[in-house]
């Protein structure tokens, strides 16, 4: 059942991505609509997979790389669906769905066997800490996708390449605005994830902060996004500069998530 739901999600996401990409390069409104409905269907199946996994495991299914990557993908698609409806911009999907698909495909590379729960994770904090962290990551992922769109559109405008793709991409200010909104959602979530993590660490390991690589890198990520938000609010960092910093922040965030788990041994290295 698990494998069936997971594989179905993967196939539907792949199809949605194909349609969204076709919408980007071909002058067909239809492709965008098909992509949109495929993605929503895929999201429901993905939710079904996650729920099923929760019921089978008996705890929040975000305990290893397979599960957390899958949840990261689910959260990204979920947040994207909300923003797509809110801003009526289908074209965003051409940049976000490939990312969600890639994350899910990476998840398939790791064992999907439900392992016995690590005793340290047996806590109510597991759900709060991980869900907040991954919703935050998802918001940053969307900001990343939109920032790439911003850089492309800004390039078109600066170089006066006003072709069909330029016509399809949304106005610069709108992209800048979406990216900013994503950050204002992602940053508090990341902050709470870190705080809840610290409280949980105190109850589980007896200390709020132990400079474990995950903690250190989370803090670095937090500082990058904090600097970006601060710059935006006070000195008016925006446009290309903000987009590039958001992309950089996302890269560091990915390292915090994957690099630390895979490369740096520590308390958070769940595989």
């Amino acid at each position, binding site marked *: 059942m698990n494998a069936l739901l997971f594989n179905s999600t993967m196939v539907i996401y792949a199809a949605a991505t194909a349609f969204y990409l076709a919408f980007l390069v071909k002058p067909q409104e239809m492709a965008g609509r098909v992509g949109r409905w495929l993605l929503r269907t895929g999201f429901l199946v993905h939710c079904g997979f996650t729920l099923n996994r929760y019921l089978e495991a008996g705890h929040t299914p975000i305990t290893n790389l397979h599960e957390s990557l899958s949840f990261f993908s689910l959260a990204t698609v979920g947040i994207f669906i909300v923003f797509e409806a809110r801003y009526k911009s289908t074209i965003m999907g051409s940049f976000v769905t490939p990312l969600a698909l890639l994350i899910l495909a990476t998840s398939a590379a790791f064992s999907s066997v439900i392992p016995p729960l690590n005793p340290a994770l047996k806590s109510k904090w597991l759900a709060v800490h991980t869900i907040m962290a991954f919703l935050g990551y998802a918001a940053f992922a969307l900001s990343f996708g939109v920032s790439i769109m911003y850089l492309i559109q800004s390039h078109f405008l600066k170089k006066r390449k006003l072709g069909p793709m330029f016509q399809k991409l949304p106005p610069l200010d709108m992209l800048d605005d979406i990216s900013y909104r994503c950050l204002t959602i992602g940053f508090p979530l990341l902050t709470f994830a870190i705080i809840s993590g610290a409280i949980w660490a105190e109850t589980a390991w007896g200390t709020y902060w132990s400079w474990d690589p995950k903690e250190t890198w989370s803090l670095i990520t937090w500082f990058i996004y904090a600097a970006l938000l601060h710059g935006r609010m006070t000195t*008016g960092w925006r446009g290309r500069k903000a987009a590039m910093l958001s992309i950089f922040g996302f890269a560091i965030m990915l390292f915090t998530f994957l690099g630390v788990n895979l490369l740096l041994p520590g308390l958070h290295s769940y595989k």
Partner: protein
Amino acid sequence: MNIIVVGLSHKTAAVEIREKVAFAPTQMEKPLNAVVALPDITEAVIVSTCNRVEIYATTRDVAGGMARLKRFLADYHGLSLEMLEKHLYSYHGEDATRHVFRVASSLDSMVVGEPQILGQIKTSYGYAAEYKSSGIILNRFLHKAFSVAKRVRTETKIASSAVSVAFAAVELAKKIFGELSDKTVLLIGAGEMCELAAKHFINTGVSGVMVTNRTFERAEKLAQEFDAKAIKFEDLFDQLPKADIILSSTGAPHFIIKEKDVTEVLKRRRMKPMFFIDIAVPRDIDPKVNDVENAFLYTVDDLNGVVATNLEQRKIEAAKAEAIVDQEIGQFFKWLSSLEVTPTIVALRTRFDEIRKAELAKTLSGWKDLPPGAEKRLEALTNAYMNKLLHHPTSLLKRTDQGNRNDLYVDALRNLFDLETGAPQENMVDLED
């Protein structure tokens, strides 16, 4: 008499070249006088817009006339002819007529169908009429061009949709800002295209318009028209941070907004994007402004790209317009050749009459015992003789249905009888339509 056209346009020369060859609209007397003073050039009109600089002239010597006009364009602006030559086109006869009719009908415009060009040619013609550099042929020629343009506008849909440089600017602004309802437009300088663009922005719905001009009264006048706020030119950089969209079209010979100004202004407006539209030729805004973060600069040339997609639809309408132009060319040439014929006949008669009178006087002066009434009868005899002799050639020339043969006859007569038929100067100016 031949009509020749020498010039360059957005199709043959970039703005960097065009701005070097442009004539200031307020100082047209000097170049117009200089052109008609050229050997073998009898009439001239100079059209100078941001997209084209063209001289229309009449001459007997097509090749020589074209060469002189090219040389004039280079010399007048202190450019080398070798450099300029490759950007210049030249037409004569039917091609010249077709070219000017197409230009006036906006078929040769950067944005096909944009309505400004007709007004610009009318203004240019107004200067030529004022300084008496245009005569009977160019007067008729341009009036014909205006009526062709009018026919094209009313009989095709070429100008019905809002596609123009102005419209293109609004579309681009939407691609930068999304909603324009909370944006402010600043107009620097005045000018038809600039004002038109401002009107487009107002129709789209912007929150405010500011106007500035070197002469504050003009700014106030324009501000009243647009329900805008007039600001002093000295305060430009104080007010600039408030503007999101800047339309610049001054007659300044140098850049008025530079890179460092924009860097500074953007800091003051917390890096909110700015969209600069430079309609002026020579340009008002340093092209380096486009390199500043969050500043976007478009010149008239750049706006071309935006409307590229709309051109397909326009092509269909343009084909109809071309048919109208072709039809009108035929009519105009009929007139042009009749115009050639009339002075030729007049000159021929004058020549015959001079000889007749001279010979008659010679005969009468040595005739002592002339019977009464004989002088009158001799006068009548020679007159009748001359008229009979001229009757057939005159009526043949007056027929307009013989195409090119008329030109041939006129040419032959001119050579056979050594006639000079300079087109008589005549004024017929009605610019109101």
